[in-house]
């Protein structure tokens, strides 16, 4: 690889993270009730064993190749580049994966863990339904019973994905407590898991939650960054100057970032949901506007009020509508290795239309946030510079949202 490895900053980015207890600096860890500890210990032990087991890795790679359809292409977006008038923009096409997003990289990995642990049932939480669909998909693939927890507000908003999950044989449980959205679905999945740990595996959908989840989700998603490194070498003959990804819980972003962390000459930009703007409370940008706290088993940046109660969030894209973020991002922010910015609803929608018209690629609204920021960034950079944007998913699921905004009844 044509990367200069000798440069280092004050933090040693060659040290493997997290530590043995799941900490990324002050972030991460395992803040759970005693009732979950044994289950997490069991998962951690299994994963430590399988992580470096060639048979497990071979099976994972085989699934990624033949079921998911990897490697996903690295595509030079020539007309988008021209439009921005600066750095060359490449797209890492996670939208072309089976089920249409990066989520499946992780659900395949965790379903294999479930299989190795002899668990016959899986549960998952979902917001937009993308992770729910990806979980239901691998459950069908591996013959596992699947139950998906989804906030009742989201069940209403995402009817098509609810139906998809049902077609795949999953049971969708509507969650009516709290704000009735993703965070509450995660609470309910945890509660179900506590009660059924013996035969149930919990497939968490993003790089958050108690240790070892942030680590294992990151490991499974890191295929994105590793492929990008190889493809950049082959296609461009060098590594990019910057990588850009949207950040909800942070799994697609950490998948892209992680292999690049130890190469400080590659800048990393995580794009949060700016919603109606960062001035008010109607956004989902804990890294930009939140503060450190503890939720869902880890210490991380959170959107909370002055009393430590978790706030409701807003984003046009349901997949970014989460008040927390994976702990590794909180660490990357604090040590200054990655920069976290935001794109508003309007900027994301505009980017959706631009990419659709200029490249014939309809991005998911989540990914549109990354595109929006990359377009701004590219314009400030020279033409010989290179940006890789992680196009985390395709936009089919969002067409009704776009249609509604346009006043079209699709």
């Amino acid at each position, binding site marked *: 690889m044509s990367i200069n490895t000798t440069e280092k900053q004050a933090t040693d980015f060659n040290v493997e993270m997290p530590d043995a207890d799941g900490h990324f600096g002050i972030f991460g860890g395992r803040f759970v009730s005693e*009732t979950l*500890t044994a289950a997490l210990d069991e998962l951690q032990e299994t994963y430590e064993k399988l992580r470096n087991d060639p048979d497990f890795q071979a099976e994972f790679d085989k699934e990624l190749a033949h079921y998911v359809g990897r490697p996903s292409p690295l595509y030079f977006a020539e007309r988008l580049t021209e439009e921005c008038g600066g750095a060359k923009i490449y797209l890492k096409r996670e939208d072309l994966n089976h089920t249409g997003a990066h989520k499946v990289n992780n659900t395949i990995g965790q379903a294999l863990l479930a299989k190795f642990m002899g668990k016959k049932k899986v549960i998952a939480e979902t917001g937009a339904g993308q992770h729910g669909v990806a979980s239901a998909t691998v459950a069908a693939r591996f013959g596992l019973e699947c139950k998906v927890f989804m906030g009742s507000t989201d069940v209403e908003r995402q009817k098509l994905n609810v139906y998809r999950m049902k077609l795949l044989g999953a049971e969708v449980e509507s969650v009516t407590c709290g704000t009735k959205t993703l965070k509450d679905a995660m609470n309910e999945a*945890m509660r179900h898991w506590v009660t059924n740990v013996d035969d149930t595996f919990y497939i968490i959908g993003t790089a958050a939650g108690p240790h070892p989840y942030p680590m294992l989700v990151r490991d499974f998603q890191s295929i994105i960054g590793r492929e990008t490194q190889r493809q950049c070498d082959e296609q461009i003959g060098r590594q990019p100057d910057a990588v850009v990804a949207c950040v909800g819980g942070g799994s697609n972003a950490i998948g892209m970032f992680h292999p690049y962390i130890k190469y400080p000459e590659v800048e990393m930009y995580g794009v949060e949901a700016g919603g109606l703007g960062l001035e008010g409370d109607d956004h989902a940008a804990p890294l930009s506007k939140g503060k450190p706290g503890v939720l869902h088993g880890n210490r991380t940046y959170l959107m909370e009020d002055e009393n430590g109660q978790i706030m409701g969030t807003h984003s046009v894209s349901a997949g970014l509508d989460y008040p927390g973020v994976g702990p590794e991002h909180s660490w990357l922010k604090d040590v200054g290795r990655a920069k976290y910015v935001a794109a508003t609803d309007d900027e994301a929608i505009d980017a959706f239309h631009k990419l659709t018209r200029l490249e014939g690629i309809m991005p998911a609204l989540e990914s549109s946030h990354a595109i929006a920021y990359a377009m701004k960034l590219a314009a400030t950079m020279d033409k010989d510079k290179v940006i890789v944007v992680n196009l985390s998913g395709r936009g089919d699921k969002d067409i009704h949202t776009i249609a509604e905004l346009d006043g079209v009844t699709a």
Partner: protein
Amino acid sequence: MSRITKTFERLAEEGKKALIPYITAGDPDKATTVPMMHALVEAGADVIELGVPFSDPMADGPTIQLACERSLKHGTSLRDVLGMVAEFRKTDKRTAVVLMGYLNPVEAMGYPEFVEQASAAGVDGVLVVDMPPEEARSVDSMFEEAGLDLIYLLAPTSTERRIKTIGEVGRGYVYYVSLRGVTGSAAIDVEDVERNLDHIRQHVKAPLCVGFGIQNAEAAARVSEVCDGVIVGSALVSRIADQADNPVQAIKDVTGLAGSMREAMDANAAAEA
């Protein structure tokens, strides 16, 4: 000696077991909490677990989730809860008070300020559901210096190693979660609890109290035979839910149930003696 430890010593001398009711502070409204605490003491409570409401009570079933929602509707904050304890302490110096809740409100206030204010208000113990001993290491001594007992949970799934750890670091009492699940899930299996407690006692010197799934006086009495204290939460909180619009009646119903548990437990202890 902490008020909690004194309470258990006194009870041991009297040949009685501790009755520990849980209520969520601010449920159904802020004004009802302190009178309800006093009424619970009247009905025979030895320790009161006062819940600090949280927006995301991950380890709780629907009953306590809804109690948190009722309380948060009035904006009950951790500061408000500390104020309630201070108010209660004005006239009750004897009954131990344990704050029970989740970590984030404490993190938001900041540990130094929290331990100082909790101690000043007259709080005796703190049970943070999502702060296991591994994550408490860096703040543990702050609680100790402020005279606050950090109380930990043990579960049927706890391993030998963890039982030992909690035996070493747990203070006040250890809260044994009697079943796999969230609060309010199912009825308790006393034989199963007894077997597990026998095992736990080999490593834990602090009093062992049992909670989750104790729904009526008879269950409280039977459980009290095998442990040092009985914790009752969801059964009381659901009485509050039933009378959320009528706090006076809610207090009557809650103390009625707590009182019947006290009676049954004491009758049982007397019969054994």
